[in-house]
């Protein structure tokens, strides 16, 4: 087989490339992710959630840009940094917050926690605590869609660090081999805990690894929700047409430490500042206002409403009961309802 050598580029679109309704939806979704995560940090420091909590601040454009381009019925699979992917996929903030509080009303009934969010109802196939663990699972969901003859697409998010794991290469190979309807979305935030991407990867351009499997690989500005959306739309069309997988490398940055337990001492403050200036939320706000798709006031209203929604989620989580300890063995087996 001859590899196609052309460089994959998503064509630019004349602005405004989105409608007002789409613009507001994207903005609302990113603000939802940001506000939820800021609240998680507060709740963690107040001792109301526990364990390892990995926040998504800074990376919102990736979840929003990809997931909001999906149809109902499509699948999303994530990592331990999964709250915002779940939110974008429609899992209610209440159900996620309650899970983080360990409550019976949580999306995993208090049994999963931050790194194990699931919602069958929303085709959110999980939160996976091990690095690269979700990649084969998402690949399986794509095979399943093909097997069952549906037009469902599977989207899988993971970090740069995961691309050095065998599961990444093994899965891409199978997905290409069987032309599976899947998007592999790498959120390249340059770091894996304290390990710099360049110290861990012999070829730092992850999108180029698509070449080895003769599938399209795109380098995407992951701080620009419209760029992410453009790439996602192209990849989703390809997947739905039965043409196979796509690899999207979205360059991004996490504004907080790896988890709330990480002292985050290794990243250069100058590097952090540089990326903070590219915050995807104000960037979209400027775009919407500039192209007269929304006013500042409308955006402010979205922020206020979202704040109210998140406060409601906390109240709900707080008021919810814990799962009864005498039901501790429930759900171990398929027979447990």
């Amino acid at each position: 087989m001859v590899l196609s050598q052309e460089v994959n580029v998503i064509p630019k679109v004349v602005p405004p490339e989105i409608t007002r309704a789409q613009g507001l939806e994207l903005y609302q979704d990113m603000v939802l992710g940001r506000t939820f995560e800021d609240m998680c940090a507060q709740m963690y420091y107040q001792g109301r959630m526990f364990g390892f909590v990995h926040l998504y601040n800074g990376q919102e454009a990736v979840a929003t840009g990809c997931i909001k381009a999906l149809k109902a019925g499509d699948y999303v699979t994530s990592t331990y940094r999964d709250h915002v992917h779940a939110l974008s996929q429609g899992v209610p903030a209440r159900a996620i917050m309650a899970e983080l509080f360990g409550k019976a009303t949580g999306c995993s009934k208090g049994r999963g926690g931050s790194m194990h969010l699931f919602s069958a109802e929303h085709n959110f196939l999980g939160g996976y605590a091990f690095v690269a663990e979700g990649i084969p699972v998402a690949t399986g969901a794509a095979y399943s869609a093909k097997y069952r003859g549906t037009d469902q697409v599977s989207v899988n998010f993971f970090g740069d660090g995961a691309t050095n794991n065998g599961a990444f290469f093994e899965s891409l190979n199978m997905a290409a081999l069987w032309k599976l309807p899947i998007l592999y979305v790498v959120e390249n935030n340059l770091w894996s805990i304290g390990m710099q991407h360049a110290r861990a990867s012999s070829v730092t351009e992850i999108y180029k690894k698509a070449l080895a499997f003769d599938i399209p690989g795109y380098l995407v500005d992951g701080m620009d929700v419209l760029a992410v959306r453009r790439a996602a739309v192209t990849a989703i069309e390809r997947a739905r047409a039965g043409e196979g997988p796509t690899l999207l490398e979205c360059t991004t940055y996490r504004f907080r430490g790896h988890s709330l337990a990480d002292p985050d001492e290794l990243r250069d403050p100058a590097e952090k500042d540089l990326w903070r200036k590219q915050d995807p939320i104000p960037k979209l706000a400027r775009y919407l206002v500039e192209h007269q798709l929304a006013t500042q006031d409308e955006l402010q209203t979205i922020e206020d409403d979202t704040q109210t929604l998140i406060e409601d989620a906390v109240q709900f989580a707080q008021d919810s009961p814990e799962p009864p300890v005498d039901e501790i063995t429930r759900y171990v087996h398929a027979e447990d309802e």
Partner: protein
Amino acid sequence: MVMQYYFEALRDAIYEEMVRDPMVMVMGEDVGHYGGSYKVTKDLFKEFGGLRVLDTPIAENSFAGMAVGCAMTGVRPIIEGMNMGFLLLAFSQIANNGGMLRYTSGGQFTVPMVVRGPGGVGRQLGAEHSQRLEAYFYGVPGLKIIAPATPLDAKGLLKSAIRDNNTVLFFEHVLLYNLKEEIPDGVDYIVPIGKANRLREGQDLTILTYSRQVHHCLSAVKTLVNEGYDPELIDLRTLKPLDLEMICESVHKTHRVLIVEEDYKTGGIGGEIIALLNEHCFDDLDAPPVRLASRDIPTPYNGRMEAATIPQVADILQAVKHLVD
């Protein structure tokens, strides 16, 4: 003497062995610049450089396999599992090569490597970060398995593990890293593999335990002694090979056994010990041995459920009284 945390004692053990033997090296995720997720390798990178303190990509199976190749050819690697659970991904290389290669090569090669890191149930870390792999690996021939409960044992046993010519799995416990103890200064402190530690002599029954459950047992024993009981408490320290001599000697005296372990009850180490008791000292037993272990469920995130998953001090008190009274 210096007061040291468990993680510092481990660090010193590695440091001393790296100074002693230039072939000893460390590899794993974030062991270098970051200093290890529980600071066990803190500053070793500065001291020994990147060749000897190797930051690896997140590729557990392959770096474990690399460690095997290193060990077969003269290097003595210490693998840090950032969490021992992650080494499920490396099960094949550890079991097939670390455990069996010496034998399958007809004795031509040894695989002197140490596989160490945190395991056990912490504080609401969720199922995948709360694993007890000691039982999963237990049946693999050729491996030695250690699980120290104190800073002193952590240091002495890690030094033994590094010097051992077999593949040794060394299970630390997430909740023990901040435990403090006096450690002898400037001494080559060694604890031999395969030797249990009798923490209290007693006549009523023998409590066998390891790792974090040692501390639950110690507090239970305190209460029991105040109430007039006379338990014998043994910290197994090495899980494989077990110190059968000390176990049998103790049972010969007490005639009753309680095993307290954090691994799953089904397929756990307690079950194996009971089978051994049947084989080696059945006639000494006055009552069926009892084991307290984790429930056979993935560790739930919810705090109360999590606590109900593993043996607690109250469970130990109740089990002892039931056995003795």
